[in-house]
């Protein structure tokens, strides 16, 4: 079969301009987020401060930027990237367009961990809340894995055991809350998701775990397409589907557990962002995993800006914003593109 001169080649499957564009979007949104607030900061001065040039912000404004807005925007970006990427990866691994990052019990496990930290009277465990919820999330997923046992033969069995473990953890959580009614409010506000706790310490350890997980996922992202086929086909195309599945699920779980312990349960990012990027680019997600991470980051930075400013000086839980804006928007795209079924 020889090439004929007049046959046009196929255009590249993934256009890297899209990735560059989403990078630019994140940068723009981030600058927007750190300049808006009860005290507006000038664009120019922010840039000068960040790049260490003269004529930047000084005094209180500088403290406001460096100690409050910057870590918060960075945490929002990290959490958004983690949730969107994990969502996309779970959707591929479980061949289920409705899979979300909390599917394997990570959310309920983190919720239980957080509740234990909040309700433990006497000991001041509140500062350890992120660690408790991180351990809770990881434990819940491990238990799901352990119970399902035949992940390789049937990915759906892991999904079902994740749901069962999630229900169990939620039941224990509810029981603990009932016994300590004073804890209801802090647990509730944690469940709705919050980034108010953002400080450089949380940003640093979140960044370490999330960036490790995202690096792994983006590295294997192109091969993930193979998991959308039967295992025999994937094998014939040169990948080991079982090994790839384990790597992908571990990395996605690490990212999710970190995100959930740093910011509570922020819903909808993990489903809406991957489908949005798929719908707009008309490409299956995996090659665009980096783009999904960047769009997820932008989405949450923007949502957090809304959470801080819409009812200023009061603050809305960010989970309310993501669902309130995300759900109708998603439904419009869904209707137009019929994404999920095709």
């Amino acid at each position, binding site marked *: *079969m020889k*090439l*004929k001169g007049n*046959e*046009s*080649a*196929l*255009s*590249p*499957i*993934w256009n890297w301009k899209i990735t560059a564009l989403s990078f630019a979007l994140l940068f723009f949104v981030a600058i927007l987020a750190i300049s808006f607030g009860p005290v507006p900061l000038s664009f120019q001065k922010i840039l000068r401060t960040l790049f260490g040039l003269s004529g930047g912000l000084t005094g209180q404004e500088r403290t406001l930027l460096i100690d409050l807005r910057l870590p918060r925007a960075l945490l929002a970006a990290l959490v958004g990237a983690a949730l969107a990427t994990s969502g996309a990866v779970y959707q591929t691994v479980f*061949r289920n*367009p409705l899979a979300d990052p909390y599917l394997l019990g990570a959310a309920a496990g983190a919720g239980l961990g957080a509740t234990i930290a909040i309700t433990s009277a006497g000991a001041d465990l509140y500062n350890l809340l992120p660690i408790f919820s991180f351990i809770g999330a990881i434990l819940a997923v491990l238990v799901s894995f352990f119970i399902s046992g035949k992940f390789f033969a049937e990915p759906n069995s892991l999904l079902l055991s994740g749901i069962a473990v999630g229900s169990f953890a939620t039941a224990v959580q509810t029981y603990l809350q009932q016994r300590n009614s004073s804890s209801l409010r802090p647990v509730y506000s944690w469940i709705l998701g919050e980034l108010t706790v953002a400080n450089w310490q949380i940003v640093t350890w979140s960044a370490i775990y999330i960036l490790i997980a995202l690096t792994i996922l983006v590295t294997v*992202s*192109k*091969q993930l*397409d*193979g998991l*959308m*086929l*039967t*295992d*025999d*086909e994937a*094998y*014939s*195309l*040169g*990948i080991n589907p079982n090994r790839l599945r384990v790597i992908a699920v571990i990395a996605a779980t690490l990212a999710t557990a970190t995100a959930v312990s740093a910011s509570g349960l922020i819903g909808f990012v993990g489903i809406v962002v991957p489908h949005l990027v*798929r719908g707009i680019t*008309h*490409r*299956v*997600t*995996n*090659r665009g995993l980096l783009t999904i991470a960047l769009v997820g980051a932008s989405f949450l930075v923007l949502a957090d800006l809304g959470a801080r400013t819409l009812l200023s000086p009061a603050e809305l839980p960010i989970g309310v914003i993501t669902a309130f804006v995300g759900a109708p928007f998603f439904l419009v795209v869904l209707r137009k593109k019929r*994404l*999920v*079924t*095709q």
Partner: protein
Amino acid sequence: MIKVTDLSIRFGSREILKDINVEISDGKWTCLVGPNGAGKTTFLRALLGSQSYSGSITDDGLEVFRNHHRNVAFVPQFPQIPIGMSVSEYVALGRSKRDGWGNESKHSRNLVAEILQITGLFGMQSQYVSQLSGGEMQRALIARALVQEPTLILLDEPTSALDLHHQIAVLNNIELLKERGVTIISTMHDITLAAMYAEKIIVMYEGKVLLDGPSDQVIHSPQLQEAFENRINVFTLDSGRPVIVAKKDLKN
């Protein structure tokens, strides 16, 4: 040359394949035929190297399990249809082994365009795979296998989803590979079609190899009747081409 020695496969207490001994020569089309449940698909998966087995399957002396040294293309009977994937992406996956995953070269993209044309899918490349009809999906699978430029291609019932016209079109496409020295192993329900294209036919029945030889010999062998429980008639057309027809009466 692929050499199968004492191949047995069990799923729990069920014995799917029993002591299979065959040799499959390079550059030829070998067809596995037999009734449903004869173990054809399992045999094909073992030849791919993705199914564990006892006994041995060697390809030029090397055991194939998880270790195929050839570029093997696999066309399943029941593919998993990826959600949200376009036809061009789907076919381009065939280049993954050669170019590395997701890094199609310009040459590869030219090849994909060309194969899309050969398989009659050009113009549909931006459609979702899930929107294709059964026949179009089958052609997309074949296209992906052709793009892979394999040296061994394994096809599980490649024509079962196709109408008569497309059966011939697809089989002709596969035959093109033979001219380039590719070894072809397929399962096929339709023995007449098998006899038309394959040089060698292996008849399987309840996990065993009943017959194994050149197509025309196998077709006219009385043991073929045994494999299909005397439910077939073999006729020969004036052109010398054999035709196998099912008997209507199922009592005997």
